[in-house]
């Protein structure tokens, strides 16, 4: 009997203790900041960033942190009407370039007065010169070093011989600090998105003595920056805290005193913390919750445009003609392009977007994404010129579904046997669809599988773990694969130059393998005043030439027309089957005002205020 009492008492004590512990834990967390006290916001955009060295960063979450920590020559800002614009930051103004005789263009920037590093030292033009040269150097070998491709001298630095050795070890970027306040940079030719590049993290300044310590960007004690915020603390894998930098010249306009970036990439965990009010912004939501969230949090769920395209790519060398097909050489290749384009019409993109992806994505029928602007500032993808009735290369609206389907079947009938009774093709070779392991990609793969099975085409599904998948796709070891591309800057070239023969992102294998000798491509630029005219050339003789023409073109209107031609060529191969344009989905507490994000997905909290 005694024993029972003792145990009962102990159990009671335990429960009381644990309840007390629960209450103690909760109390501290739920305190809200008052208007008189320093303002503070808790957000979660991703897990631990790979790096917050501006030159080395290549991730969107890292860029968000860097946009708060550093001040480049330019920055993103939202005007009173909510329109995004690029404005001068460390530079007094964003000047016009002065053309030189050799076609290069020189920009001379004057730095604002009173620019300070977070350790009190002055920011000089020399720091910018050093940082840009460092970011573009072979020694640093940064992922985004190519963002300096537009600057004169970059090509020389990276020029290699057959043995992959650098030919010009002494080559330098053409950027020079004339004095402490004046920075002179020369571009190889005019670049429409130059100001946007100035606001890109790779162009942010760092100081030579700071970065000589290779681990400088991993600890607040060695982290020296020049932006609106300082790195106050960093508990790895847990929390990064930024505090307002009083020395920042525009410090008065910075409303938020402290930003806590919680480091997590689990969408469910993020949602829990949003629902209980701990985090005011979360940058990811579980896909299967989206339908509910839209209903339950209409004012707090956001899906905004992002300049990227989710698509399916074909391996151009995949044999897709029937085994007994008599077509050979150029004829066979032309037929394959027609077949691939027909298959693209079999898919119902509205179903994919509404029922599977659910994040407000936009059905796509062009590769260059929505959000990228044309020469006149209108949407590039609306100006493909195929038809006035729809945007892009085919009609993605629900009304056009039947017509698309019928035309696809008509095309395919030219090459395959069609059984009128079952309404299925009987001799389409079976193919495999490769995707990286992910529920969403799988669901889309299954939809494509069923859509093709509907007309008798067998598509097997195969999934691979991410890094393996990337490798397989790059090697061209697949027939059809899931793919996606998010641009780094608002210029269609960021979608087009990845398909040159030698590009590392040429997953389709244009101009590689058997396709290297396929001479069916035409390029005629005479209408734009160029001499280039190639008939039945290879991919290297046409597309590669077109891309280098675009890159050296200084006439903006012509340049955009050339880019439309490039996309026409690309879409003509049928190897790119666009599915939808990406959106960025996030949840933002309705108490937060003054928040904005840019088309690249960077989130800005500096002008935020929290009500209530």
């Amino acid at each position, binding site marked *: 009997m005694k024993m029972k009492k003792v145990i009962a008492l102990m159990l009671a004590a335990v429960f009381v203790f644990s309840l007390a512990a629960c209450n*103690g834990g909760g109390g*501290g967390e739920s305190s809200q900041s008052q208007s008189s006290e320093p303002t503070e916001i808790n957000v979660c955009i991703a897990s631990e960033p790979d790096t917050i060295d501006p030159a080395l960063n290549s991730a969107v979450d890292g860029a968000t942190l860097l946009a708060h920590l550093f001040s480049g020559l330019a920055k993103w800002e939202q005007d009173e009407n909510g329109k995004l614009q690029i404005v001068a930051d460390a530079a007094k103004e964003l000047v016009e370039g002065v053309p030189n005789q050799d076609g290069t263009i020189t920009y001379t920037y004057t730095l604002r007065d009173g620019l300070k590093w977070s350790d009190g030292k002055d920011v000089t033009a020399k720091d910018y010169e050093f940082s840009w040269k460092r970011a573009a150097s072979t020694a640093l070998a940064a*992922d985004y070093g190519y963002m300096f491709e537009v600057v004169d001298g970059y090509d020389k630095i990276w020029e290699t011989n057959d043995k992959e050795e650098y030919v010009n070890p002494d080559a330098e970027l053409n950027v020079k600090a004339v004095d402490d306040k004046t920075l002179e940079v020369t571009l190889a030719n005019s670049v429409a998105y130059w100001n946007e590049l100035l606001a890109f993290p790779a162009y942010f300044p760092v100081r030579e003595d700071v970065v000589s310590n290779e681990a*400088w960007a991993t600890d607040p004690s060695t982290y020296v920056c020049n932006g609106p915020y300082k790195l106050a603390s960093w508990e790895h894998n847990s929390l990064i805290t930024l505090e307002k930098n009083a020395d920042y010249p525009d410090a008065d306009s910075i409303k938020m005193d402290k930003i806590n970036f919680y480091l997590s990439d689990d969408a469910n965990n993020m949602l829990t*913390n949003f*629902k209980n009010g701990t985090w005011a912004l979360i940058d990811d939501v579980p896909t299967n919750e989206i339908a509910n969230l839209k209903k339950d949090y209409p004012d707090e769920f956001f899906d905004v445009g992002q300049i990227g395209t989710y698509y399916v790519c074909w391996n151009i060398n995949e044999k897709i003609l029937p085994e007994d097909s008599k077509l050979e050489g150029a004829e066979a290749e032309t037929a394959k392009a027609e077949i691939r384009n027909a298959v693209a019409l079999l898919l119902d993109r509205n179903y994919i977007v509404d029922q599977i992806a659910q994040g407000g994505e936009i059905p796509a029928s062009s590769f260059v994404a929505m959000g990228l602007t044309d020469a006149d500032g209108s949407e590039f993808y609306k100006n493909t010129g195929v038809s006035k009735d729809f945007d892009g290369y085919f009609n993605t609206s629900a009304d056009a579904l039947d017509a698309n389907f019928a035309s696809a079947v008509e095309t395919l009938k030219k090459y395959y046997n069609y059984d009128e009774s079952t309404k299925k093709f009987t001799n389409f070779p079976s193919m495999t669809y490769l995707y990286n392991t992910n529920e969403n990609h799988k669901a889309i793969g299954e939809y494509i599988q069923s859509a093709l099975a509907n007309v008798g085409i067998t598509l097997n599904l195969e999934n691979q773990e*991410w890094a393996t998948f990337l490798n397989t796709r790059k090697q061209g070891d697949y027939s059809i694969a899931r793919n996606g591309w998010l641009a780094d800057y608002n210029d269609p070239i960021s979608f087009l130059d990845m398909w040159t023969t030698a590009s590392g*992102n040429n997953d389709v294998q244009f101009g590689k393998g058997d396709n290297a000798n396929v001479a069916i491509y035409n390029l005629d630029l005479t209408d734009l005043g160029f001499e280039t005219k190639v008939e039945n050339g290879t991919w290297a003789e046409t597309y590669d030439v077109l891309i280098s023409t675009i890159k050296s073109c200084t006439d903006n209107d012509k340049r955009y027309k050339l880019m439309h031609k490039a996309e026409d060529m690309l879409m003509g191969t049928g190897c790119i089957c666009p599915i939808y344009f990406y959106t960025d989905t996030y949840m933002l507490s309705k108490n937060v005002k003054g928040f904005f994000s840019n088309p690249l997905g960077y989130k800005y909290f500096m002008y935020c205020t929290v009500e209530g």
Partner: protein
Amino acid sequence: MNSKMTFYILKRIFLAIFTVWVVITVTFFVMHAVPGGPFVGEKATTPAVQAAMEAKYGLDKPVMEQYFTYLKDIVTKFDFGPSLKQRGRMVIDIIFDGMKTSMVLGLIAAGISALFGILLGAVAALRRNKLIDRIIMVITTAFVSMPSFIMGSLLLALFAIELQILPANGSTPAGLILPIVTLALYPMAYITRLTRSSMLDVLGQDYIRTAKAKGVSGRDIIFGHALKNSLIPVITYLGPMLAYIVTGSLVVEQIFAVPGIGRAFVSSITNRDYPMIMGTTIILAALIVIMNLVTDILYKLVDPRITLE
């Protein structure tokens, strides 16, 4: 007896080192055989950048050479190298950071589960078939059969969303309460059941009956004879459990956003962060080997009848 024990321990230590070496070797070569590398991303870098990065981290050398360099650095300098993904950070620092949290979490959870497990198990055994036994058994059955991701999600829904008395992320001390409870419930339930059946077994032994016949008090029988002897199976379970729980449970760390070693381990593999994969594997393997060794030695201390081979 003592020298035999020393010899045994030495032998086990040698075996432990051998085991860790095998783990290092297998992991190293399997890791390099898996397609994809640390510098392959969605956006391809140029071959020149790729080559520059590989040269910087010595990945351009033959795999055999890399293997021996790695072994040499580990043995002579205890140097696990830099992380390839988190630029500028050393693997040992990342592991240390993660282990700190996972250790705290794991040790508290293990302590709670052992304490309450044994207590509840003993109560259930002593009150066999009574109401309290039934209640304990029903509850523990539920806990044992519930996977941690369900238990974790339930606790989150209740305490973090409905009642809002506990945070849902493990970046603060208060945020560690829910993950600790989630981690502890399964082993606690398991230990309870283990203790109960083992205790029942012991209580039926002749020497207990003898003690009762001799008039030894109930308390002395339970604490002096029954409990101690019924702990042997519990200890067998405790060692590996401790290793498992301390090295971090990926699921629990993921659900509660706890900055532990489990998450670091899994992401290192996805990232092909070679030095990170090696570092975490070695540390985790060493921990498990050590825990097993400690368990075997504890065995001997609890029950002298067990001979160590």
